């Protein structure tokens, strides 16, 4: 009998169905990988099983019994433990305190000695037998913190461990230690659900793999019975169809030249020559350094070094104002946090970086600004009637268009740096944003995108730079790359094989 099963699970957020009729069963002592592209529904599934979200349809079975998991505490009592991507340890407290922190079974009066003994045995099981219980967690590496987290879940009598991309930010040695710990847990009779983007890991550590695509379960396979290529087919499935515009490459002169860019502690010796009228995609997973390269070029990291020139002019790094002056514009994927001024209206957002051109002696030319906003709104396809409504009333897709609109216009076309240009954007708006990107390209802009969405990379790029843990793996011209090569590069299958 499976210890955990879901049947016909469905979850909606507003009009979006993020999980549709998902049925899965997990046995004791099974390590199950869950794979799928961004937005496939992996994290939502985990959050339902751990009681963070309530499903809109379907049943959960624990030990064969239909169970309604009401909240994360309830999941904990059932032995279901989430090892979160963002670690939930308290850095200032000791390893011992962290292990017992939040454990509801510790009585008010307890024997410290017993707690110590049990903590020590849990740590030993995850390979941290040599760690002093008094060490503050802040002194541990990220990898060791994850192991402490595993030990913490062990002391809570967890039977099912959920790991959401545990290796995204770890080094090889640390990953190996996590794997050892997971194997030890399995030998103890525990089950593990393992979400990952790195296909190599699926074959290294997992018994079975379930693939989600657009909220639906595509299939579950034993890892011994399939190979990488088949797994990738399951993940990508659909054709790349009409989503992406057709285009002819018309590269111009170099717009952005990067030499020896270093962004400690991730990016080493990054080099790039990006031409006008082209889209360059930096393809990589979380921790690949692609995002850090963009942020460094936009002047948003304080420790970047290297030689960068924009349209032949040298650029001073580490200053967002200098980058802006060089027509280097950054479009953040985090629209609410870093991209837009959501409490200001659409028009004010559109002209945010253009105030200097439209003011005299510090006084704004309001009529000019209004005309500018109207022109930009027309260029990106936002209704002029919305110029006065607050930006937070726009949909995700329209907000992304707004971020585009803010970054274009004003003389010579510049360089646009975009991180995950379609994150949180629905399918319809996606196609529109891709057309917008191509349109800008034809107008002479140079676009550098960082993306972990391989389909998007292949559908949009003139040049693909694959990255893995801060280093460039390869550079492909349009047509030279295919899904397998790119996926292989960014998940570093070569090293894993």
């Amino acid at each position, binding site marked *: 009998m499976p210890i955990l099963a879901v049947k016909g699970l469905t979850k909606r957020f507003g009009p979006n169905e993020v999980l549709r009729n998902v049925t899965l069963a997990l046995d004791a002592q099974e390590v199950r990988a869950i794979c799928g592209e961004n937005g496939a529904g992996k994290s939502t599934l985990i959050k339902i099983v751990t009681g963070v979200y309530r499903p809109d349809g379907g049943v959960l079975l624990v030990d064969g019994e239909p169970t309604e998991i009401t909240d994360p505490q309830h999941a904990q009592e059932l032995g279901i433990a989430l090892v979160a991507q963002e670690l939930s340890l308290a850095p200032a407290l000791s390893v011992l305190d962290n292990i017992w922190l939040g454990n509801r079974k510790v009585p008010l009066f307890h024997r410290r000695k017993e707690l110590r003994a049990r903590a020590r045995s849990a740590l030993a099981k995850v390979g941290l037998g040599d760690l002093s219980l008094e060490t503050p967690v802040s002194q541990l590496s990220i990898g060791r913190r994850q192991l402490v987290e595993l030990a913490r879940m062990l002391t809570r009598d967890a039977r099912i461990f959920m790991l959401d991309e545990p290796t995204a930010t770890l080094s090889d040695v640390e990953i190996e230690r996590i794997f050892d710990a997971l194997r030890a847990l399995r030998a103890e009779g525990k089950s593990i659900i393992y979400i990952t983007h790195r296909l190599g890991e699926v074959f290294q550590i997992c018994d079975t793999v379930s693939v989600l695509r657009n909220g639906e379960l595509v299939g579950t396979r034993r890892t011994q019975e399939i190979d990488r290529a088949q797994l990738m087919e399951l993940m990508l499935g659909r054709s790349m169809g009409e989503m992406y515009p057709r285009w002819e490459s018309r590269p111009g002169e170099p717009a952005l030249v990067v030499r020896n860019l270093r962004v400690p502690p991730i990016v080493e010796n990054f080099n790039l020559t990006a031409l006008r009228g082209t889209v360059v995609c930096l393809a990589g997973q979380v921790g690949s350094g692609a995002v850090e390269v963009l942020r460094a070029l936009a002047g948003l990291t304080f420790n970047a070094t290297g030689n960068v020139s924009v349209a032949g002019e040298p650029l001073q790094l580490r200053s967002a*104002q200098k980058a802006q002056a060089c027509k280097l514009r950054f479009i953040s994927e985090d629209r609410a946090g870093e991209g837009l001024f959501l409490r200001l209206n659409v028009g004010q957002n559109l002209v945010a970086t253009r105030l200097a051109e439209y003011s005299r002696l510090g006084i704004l030319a309001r009529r000019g600004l209004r005309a500018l906003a109207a022109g930009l709104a027309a260029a990106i396809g936002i209704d002029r009637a919305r110029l006065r409504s607050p930006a937070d009333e726009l949909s995700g897709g329209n907000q992304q268009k707004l971020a585009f609109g803010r970054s274009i216009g004003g003389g010579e076309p510049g360089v646009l740096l975009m991180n995950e240009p379609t994150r949180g954007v629905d399918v319809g708006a996606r196609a529109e944003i891709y057309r917008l990107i191509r349109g800008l390209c034809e107008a002479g802009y140079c676009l550098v995108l960082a993306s972990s969405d391989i389909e998007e990379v292949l559908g949009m790029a003139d040049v693909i730079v694959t990255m893995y843990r801060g280093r460039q793996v390869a550079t492909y011209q349009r047509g030279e790359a295919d899904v397998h090569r790119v996926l292989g590069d960014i998940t570093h299958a070569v090293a894993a094989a």
Partner: protein
Amino acid sequence: MSAALLPAGLRFGGARARHLVLAARLVAGASIALFALGTPGFTSPLSVNALLNAVSFIGCVAVGMSFITLTGNIMSLCLGATVSASALIFLASLSLGISAAFLLALAFGVAVTAAQGLLVGYIRANPILVSIAGLSLLIGGAALVTGGQRIYPGGTGLQMFKGRVAGIPVEALYFFATVIVGQFILSWTRIGRVMLMVGSNPRAATAAGLGTAGAVTAAYAVAGACSALSGVLLAARYGSGDMELGAGYDYSAIAAVLVGGTSIQGGSGSVLRTLIGVTVIAVIEVVLLLRGFSEQLQYLITGAIVLAVIMLHTVGERP
């Protein structure tokens, strides 16, 4: 995330919540107006005068406070002390002539408050803590210099800042001018627009390469100038001063800012709203006074109203 966990019925749509708040505002405004006009003696010259006076002194500080709130720095606890200290400087330097004294007081207010703005803007120091430190320094410094004595004017010319023109108290004229200049800065100048953007989303403002630290400093400088003006008006009215002169003005000012509907999170609001906030509070106070409520009850009722308004806005601002 948390919104997703709420049942749909409990969630406010952005636009719907805004309409609700607007309706509540209109109803509240209308009822206050009716209540005031129905109070015997409210329209008498005496009470109108009292109203204008109450509005003017606190109003200037509230206009300044609006800039601090709008740039996302919540409030300053130091503006009241700045009012007092500027008043002392003004009185003590009257012997140099009225304009020189006025400019000195103004320069003092700007310097003291802009210095705090520098710390908040460039070092990202916590604005509340910085203002508490500023408060201590001002009170300590003043005690050291004055030895705790009251300060009396060292010269003449005070009537420039008191009396009336065309039947309107001069203080009110200065206050209205402050409102106009403040609103002009906010909506017609580049730095004002940047202040709004910094308040709305400081990280986005930094990422867009706007001069965020400069805008914050400028906002504090404006707040300092407004407080100094309030200090000068108070000094002229009372003819002498000590550090108690502007005590508590910070709280009255932030109450006015919030009642006006400026967001405590920054980025949304205006000086005109603060004008409304100041007026609403003053009207309520005058009405309570005219209806014979004791001073303690007045405080209590005003406090309750401020609380209600702030809760209303919080509901409206929830995403």
